[in-house]
């Protein structure tokens, strides 16, 4: 699954973020969740903003959501991805305004629209420098999306 050619810039894996970037190994989108009140936190933080609890743990979410906004990038900023590509803010089904920056894949850029129903998919990025493989959560259209 790993790309041949130019590589995406990958995240540094830390104790606080590793679960998010490695969840795709077993096909799971994991979001940090307060064990006391059930609030999901993204990006991960040391405590729950609702009740200040530090009992936080990664929990599997449905991986379903909708496109809150998107843009089709045409300018090359980095060696990868190759323009044009779709950057989106996906709002997960589990909680209002629980949003991830991601890419929409599996359909032509012109088919993407705000409100589009999407589901998670993972792009495996192998690492040969000992800094750890990464599974980037991305999203593809579900349901009646044309061109999916």
């Amino acid at each position, binding site marked *: 699954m790993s790309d041949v050619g130019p590589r995406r*810039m990958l995240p540094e894996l830390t104790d606080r973020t590793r679960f998010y970037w490695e969840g795709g190994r077993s096909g799971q989108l994991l979001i940090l969740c307060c064990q006391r009140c059930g609030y999901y936190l993204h990006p991960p933080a040391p405590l729950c903003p609702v009740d200040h609890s530090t009992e936080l743990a990664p929990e599997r979410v449905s991986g379903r959501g909708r496109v809150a906004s998107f*843009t089709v990038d045409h300018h090359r900023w980095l060696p990868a991805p190759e323009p044009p*590509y779709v950057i989106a803010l996906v709002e997960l089904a589990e909680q209002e305004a629980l949003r991830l*920056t991601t890419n929409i894949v599996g359909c032509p850029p012109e088919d993407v629209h705000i409100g589009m129903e999407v589901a998670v998919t993972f792009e495996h990025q192998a690492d040969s420098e000992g800094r750890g493989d990464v599974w980037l959560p991305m999203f593809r259209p579900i349901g009646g999306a044309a061109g999916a």
Partner: protein
Amino acid sequence: MPDDHIERHCVISGVGQSDVGRRLGRDPRELTLDACLAAAEDAGLTTAQIDGLSTYPGAAVPIPGFSGAGAYEVIDALRLHVDWYDSGLETSGQLGSVMKACLAVGAGMATHVLCFRSVWEGSAQGTGGRASLAGGGGGRAGPPPRASGPNQWTLPYGSASAANWIALYAQAHMHRYGTTPEQLAQIALNGRRNAARNPKAIYRQPMSMEDYFASRIISTPLRLFDCDVPCDGATAVVVSRRERAADLRHPPVRVAAMGAALHDRPSWDQLSDLTRLVGADAAAQMWSRTDLTPADVDLAELYDGFSILTMLWLEALGLCPVGESGRFVEDGSRIALDGELPLNTHGGQLSAGRLHGYGFLHEAVVQLRGDGGERQVAGNPSVAAVAAGGGNTCGCMLLTAGD
């Protein structure tokens, strides 16, 4: 009540600006000092009388060209004896540094505070594009660095520039309110019209709607002409104690109110409402500190790092209803120099160069003094709204002419 607010003890006593150019190839510290000395002279002050200093963002910001000089460099170069000084990036936009100066003056910590913003992004970015790359890797040898901090959530997806992040707001605004690309274009066209009357502007040749639509797409719906132009240049202002204004060279411009509030998440992609600038919190605070209202504003100098930000500031400041900025700027007549709300009268950052917030403040003072020359707004404008920033960092000020 508003007379009790601390900023009412403050005036903008002097403004100064260095040469401005796409790529000047000059030492950015030299440009910074040019602007600082010009501002002090404009205020009628010697450097010995400057007793405070404030700047955004200060030294040691690892973005090429983002900071031309730090506070210490200027204090040392001019051998200033300061009773108060400050710099920093984590503040209410670029104007946060000026608001802090007002707080210091109002609190009696200093009497004349020199404030500056200096950039050399034009030279630093070489012949690359307009929109600047955020964060990024630096020049280390070896395998490509990994992204950490806030960048780790965006760079793997190629969401590398503020152009991407702000395009998401533009798309959301279009979806929710029916704002059109033609309306967005009016911010760029208006800036270019005004820049033709500003000798220091970087792009002064006319731009038509056809020219706008012929510019390449950067990140939909934003085109090249929706993105400001990196440049080299420095701008400085002096904030002085109002009671000392009688000694000064020019009639002072008063600080009627300022807004620094941030009630949303300090984030570019986690805002509660993608169509609302966090500047709306700052604007509400600003209006709560004055008896003036949006109807009193004679001209507006509103940040246009990207065209959509100016539209969002119009709404945030209540200069048009929420969601209506597209229709407000449509056909360009209302925001033109002779319109009911002249906007970005020097050309904005889109055409006059990315002087990063301070260019708007400088222009507001020029207009309120009646020194705009060919681009002077008619009718002796007396109230100017100035706003800077976008994303997670916004601030605004209301300036008035005379006493």
